[in-house]
């Protein structure tokens, strides 16, 4: 036991003298996790506040005469109604993003004053749609309560509390696979971007810092390969592994969603997959080049892993912010590296990504990738980095 304790003390002494171990064990957790949960709390709070303040655009279709309901809709302030004469026209407008909700009202006078058939049409994959349904329900409940109270008052009854007799049918117009689309829109951007990095990290560290650790770097540098060729060869290898990892992760995620029970029908068309690929490839260029630089700078694979960890954590932070984010980044906001790409993938999944917005993600990724590759060549020319003493 004494021997074990001696060894234990020696190991701990080594640990506290290793600045990387001290940082990762004592400093990093108390910085990262408060930051992560602080960000999550802030984003959720903002999201809730935004949905609470939302005045849903309600496309109202009334079949039959219902002047009381029309008047009530016009007088309230929680909904923004616009009136349509035809259900199909209203649904078409809803699908084009002209509103959050369609309210169809069929007046059934034969059932008396409370004879209404109510249907709400919305896209269940949309948070705004869900919020709109809740607000429309609250409005209708208030309307029927007033209507019932007025009728009871006419009969000489004044109850303190009543449950208004009305029912609403809710129809999702988003088609099949609501859960699948929700999961896709929330998780796919995050996991795809994360899988680029997870694919590139280990392999990238091995073929860069690992070369130094094994002593093969001198062999390679004294060959006829130019520094540009060395950088290009290593970069392409990292990029390939990163993209394969991303592709396999994407397939795995889709399989997972299918096994989970959600239909993916219509969720991911070939066109959407193409959009996503167009966003991911330039992003993979950036992340692979970043891994190449960090790995080339580090002396050992362990050191490279430690240096790359903050990049990994940054992706997690950005992923969380995009998953829980308020609103949809547009225009130049999509040029923010990594975060812009995640937002663009989310937009592609919802079918709202435009070629211009795709251009913004290119605008950030391509020059940044080129700059990082230039920096990599510089590192491979720097004997101070390659033979650090």
């Amino acid at each position, binding site marked *: 036991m004494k021997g074990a304790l001696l060894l234990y003390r020696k190991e701990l002494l080594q640990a506290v003298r290793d600045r990387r171990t001290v940082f990762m064990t004592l400093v990093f957790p108390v910085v990262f996790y408060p930051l992560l949960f602080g960000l999550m709390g802030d984003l959720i709070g903002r999201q809730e506040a935004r949905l609470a303040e939302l005045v849903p655009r309600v496309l109202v279709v009334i079949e039959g005469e219902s002047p009381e309901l029309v008047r009530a809709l016009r007088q309230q302030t929680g909904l923004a109604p616009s009136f349509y004469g035809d259900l199909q026209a209203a649904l078409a407008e809803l699908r084009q993003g002209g509103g959050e909700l369609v309210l169809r009202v069929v007046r059934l006078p034969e059932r008396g004053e409370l004879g209404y058939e109510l249907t709400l049409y919305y896209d269940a994959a949309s948070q705004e749609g869900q919020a709109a349904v809740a607000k429309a329900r609250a409005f209708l409940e208030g309307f029927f309560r007033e209507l019932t109270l007025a009728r009871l008052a006419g009969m000489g009854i004044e109850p303190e509390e009543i449950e208004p007799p009305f029912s609403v049918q809710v129809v999702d117009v988003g088609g099949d696979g609501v859960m699948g689309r929700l999961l896709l829109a929330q998780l796919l951007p995050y996991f795809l971007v994360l899988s680029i990095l997870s694919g590139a990290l280990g392999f990238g560290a091995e073929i860069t810092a690992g070369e130094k650790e094994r*002593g*093969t770097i*001198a*062999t390679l540098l*004294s060959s*006829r390969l130019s520094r540009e060729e060395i950088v290009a060869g290593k970069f392409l290898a990292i990029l390939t592994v990163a993209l394969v990892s991303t592709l396999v992760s994407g397939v795995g995620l889709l399989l997972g969603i299918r096994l989970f029970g959600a239909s993916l029908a219509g969720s991911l068309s070939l066109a959407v997959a193409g959009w996503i690929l167009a966003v991911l490839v330039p992003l993979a260029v950036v992340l692979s080049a970043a891994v190449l630089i960090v790995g080339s700078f580090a002396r050992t694979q362990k050191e490279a892993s430690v240096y790359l960890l903050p990049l990994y954590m940054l992706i997690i932070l950005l992923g969380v912010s995009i998953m829980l984010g308020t609103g949809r980044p547009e225009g130049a906001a999509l040029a923010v590296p990594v975060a812009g790409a995640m937002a663009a993938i989310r937009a592609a999944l919802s079918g709202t990504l435009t070629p211009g917005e795709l251009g913004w993600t290119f605008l950030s990724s391509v020059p940044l990738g080129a700059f990082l590759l230039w920096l990599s060549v510089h590192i491979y020319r720097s004997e*101070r980095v390659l033979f650090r003493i």
Partner: protein
Amino acid sequence: MTAILAQDLVKTFRTRKGEVRAVDGISFQVASGEIYGLLGPNGAGKTTTLRILATLLTPTSGRAQILGHDVVEAPQEVRARIGFHATETGLYERLTPWETLLFFARIFGLPREEAEARAVATLELLGLTELKDRKVGTLSTGERQKLSLGRCLIHDPPVLILDEPTFGLDVFVAKTVSELILRLKGEGHTILLSTHNMHLAAKLCDRVGIIWRGKVWAQGTPEELAARVGGVDFEQVFFRTLQAAGLSPGGANGVP
């Protein structure tokens, strides 16, 4: 004809503790077909000198040439004419010897067919033909060392720069490597090697430069150096040469 030229080479490194002068005005020449040894202890400046000649490091000042090509001005010309063996074997664990040799042959510009022919011949020369399809990671230390030397030879360079080629090898493997180096000399290669092994230097080298603290303190054939200081074996030659220069490499107890 001079195959390797080092003239007033200086190399300094900036470290946290200040500037380190790893090479401090080294000059020597190696004639074609000669084996020249840089003999000195660890930290003497041998590896830095060899790395300059292999174009891995740029000299702070001075000049170095391989077969007339300047290492700073024409590094690609130099690389095409040298085979550099670092202290570490510098091999990829998950490749086979065949794949290793083929890879290095191709990156030195040999066409596929010629590369394969060279790989076959090199494996034969090294006695590794039977092991050509095994992963490098499963080879013994001696087999790896031989393969590492083979990698340097694959493009048939006229000049070989070998940093501690027998470092860490048992006597049997060291003997095999020594024999291989002599064989390569017999085939016309010019060889510059570094070692801290006095006996190896005496056995292999046509001429030796005694290096310590970044300077060459004496150079000549082993016999000339021995005669100059009256040493019986090469270890005595090394210490007495440095003592004659006013240095005390043996520490407080002086020279043996």
